[in-house]
């Protein structure tokens, strides 16, 4: 029975919670508890969704958005993790770079988006860079925190066995920080969706954000929610994929995940 529950719960509970939320929403809508003008019921949203799917409206916009997300995510995440780990390892690098990170991170990309356009041009690059910045700082700060959490003895072992700086980095610092790096990646993935839609919302012809903007302009509230649902579904998919990768990459952390429930 215990074993059964172990197998069934991971599939059942997420389904229950997601459909539960949708059903509750539908119910509230049907009972007239929420204003359908602003909160249309899920069934109508799905209807609109399939309509837009048939039009091909979703496909084009989604592919454009996903392209921006992936490129921006990679451009931001890879240097973010690398520099974050370096800052974690070397105190001098950290002392030197941390103030710059602390100062540039909170600058709102939206408010300086016109400047990004001056620097990176109006095409894709400025949008991609806005995403990249969002991911960069998050993964950097989490990777830096990851290094700080590494048990000192691992550094001592590495040093004792003559690890070069590169070896220390690839064989100890990077794998040991993976748990926090993955957390950073999860936050960054969500952030890249938030940023891309934000950027497309204010200045783009195509993409999910532009779709949402158009929905606001025409006040087609179902279309707006279709855009939101797409973000949500992407969020769930990204998280699932990440979990799978995590499960393979850091098994030694996974086993600590169910304290006292075995």
């Amino acid at each position, binding site marked *: 029975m215990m074993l059964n529950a172990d197998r069934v719960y991971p599939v059942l509970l997420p389904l229950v919670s997601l459909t539960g939320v949708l059903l509750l929403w539908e119910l509230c809508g049907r009972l007239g508890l929420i204003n359908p003008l*602003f909160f249309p019921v899920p069934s109508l949203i799905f209807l609109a969704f399939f309509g837009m799917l048939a039009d091909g409206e979703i496909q084009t916009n989604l592919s454009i958005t996903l392209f921006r997300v992936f490129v921006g995510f990679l451009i931001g995440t890879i240097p973010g993790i690398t520099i974050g780990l370096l800052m974690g390892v070397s105190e001098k690098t950290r002392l030197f770079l941390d103030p710059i990170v602390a100062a540039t991170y909170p600058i709102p990309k939206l408010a300086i988006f016109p400047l990004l*356009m001056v620097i990176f041009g*109006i095409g894709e690059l400025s949008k991609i860079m806005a995403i990249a910045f969002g991911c960069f700082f998050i993964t950097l700060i989490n990777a830096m925190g990851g290094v700080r959490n590494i048990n000192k003895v691992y550094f001592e072992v590495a040093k004792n066995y003559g690890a070069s700086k590169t070896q220390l980095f690839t064989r100890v610092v990077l794998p040991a920080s993976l748990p926090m790096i993955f957390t950073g990646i999860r936050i960054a993935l969500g952030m890249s969706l938030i940023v891309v839609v934000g950027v497309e919302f204010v*200045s*783009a012809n195509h993409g999910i954000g532009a779709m949402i*903007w*158009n929905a*606001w302009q025409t006040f087609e509230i179902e279309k707006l929610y279709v855009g939101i649902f797409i973000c949500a579904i992407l969020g769930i998919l990204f998280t699932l994929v990440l979990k799978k990768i995590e499960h393979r990459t850091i098994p030694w952390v996974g086993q600590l995940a169910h304290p006292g429930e075995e």
Partner: protein
Amino acid sequence: PAPAMKTVTVSYQPTTANGPIYIAIDEGYFAEQGIDVRLEKTLTAAALPLLINGDIGASTGPVKIGLINVIAKGEHVRIVADKGRLTPGSCTAYALMVRKDLFDKGVVTNVADLKGRKIAQRDSDYDLYRALALGNLSRDDVEIVDMDFASVIPAFKNGAVDAGLVTEPYITQAINNGSAVVLVPAQDFLPDWPIPLYYGPALLDKDPDLGRRFMVAYLKGVKQYNEGKTERNLVILGNYTHLDRELLNQSCWYPIAADGNLPREPIRGYINWMYANKKITQKLNDDQLYDMSYVTYANGVLHNTTDGRQQTT
């Protein structure tokens, strides 16, 4: 008897286009009517839901497809007065601009020259359609770049776009820093295009009397606004737009009909165009769009109390 103070929330963008409202606040015209106006800066997209929801009583801005759709769904939102108009022969508050270097070199000197060029715009399909029509061009003849207004000047500067639809104060800025010139002022392709004042259910349904009093104060503001760039008006607009004196003096203040009435032909044309292009499924008639009873009332009151006003001041 002085009525108790009531609050009306108005959504706005802090531009010169809302001059009459600023004036009516600072001169106490609203207070005279027992109204406390709260200005709420909102995204244009947010204004409509807030209006419908009754969070705000009145709103301003150009007529867009969203308004048509909302009214078509049966929501009680109405155009109640004029609040600025692209009057032929007046100054330019909205224009199709072109990069100065292109213009100076004679590469683009009229609309027809824009063929194949990049034009910045944001949700101005109809405006662009009308502008391009001047050069016998259609949307497909140009490359359209979506962009918010603040980004247009940087885009002109680094040559990312060739032309664009621009409003004040960016027109003045672009001229001042030499990045662009006006190719066609909007009054040439959208003659008499109105930017109206809307009421939502908070005034229309819940408290029409408050709406009427609001209109009285507003029209008094319009009257003073139409006196032009007087010292007093410059000070008041400066308070709300944060623009400096010089820029305010240079920039265009939309003309507004003193009696608050507005021409209906341009919006009819817009609705027909949208219907023809299948952007809306239902043509609204004037009764669904306008409720001019408020300006009618206010005009009556104002004619009766002209003397009274002189007494109080």
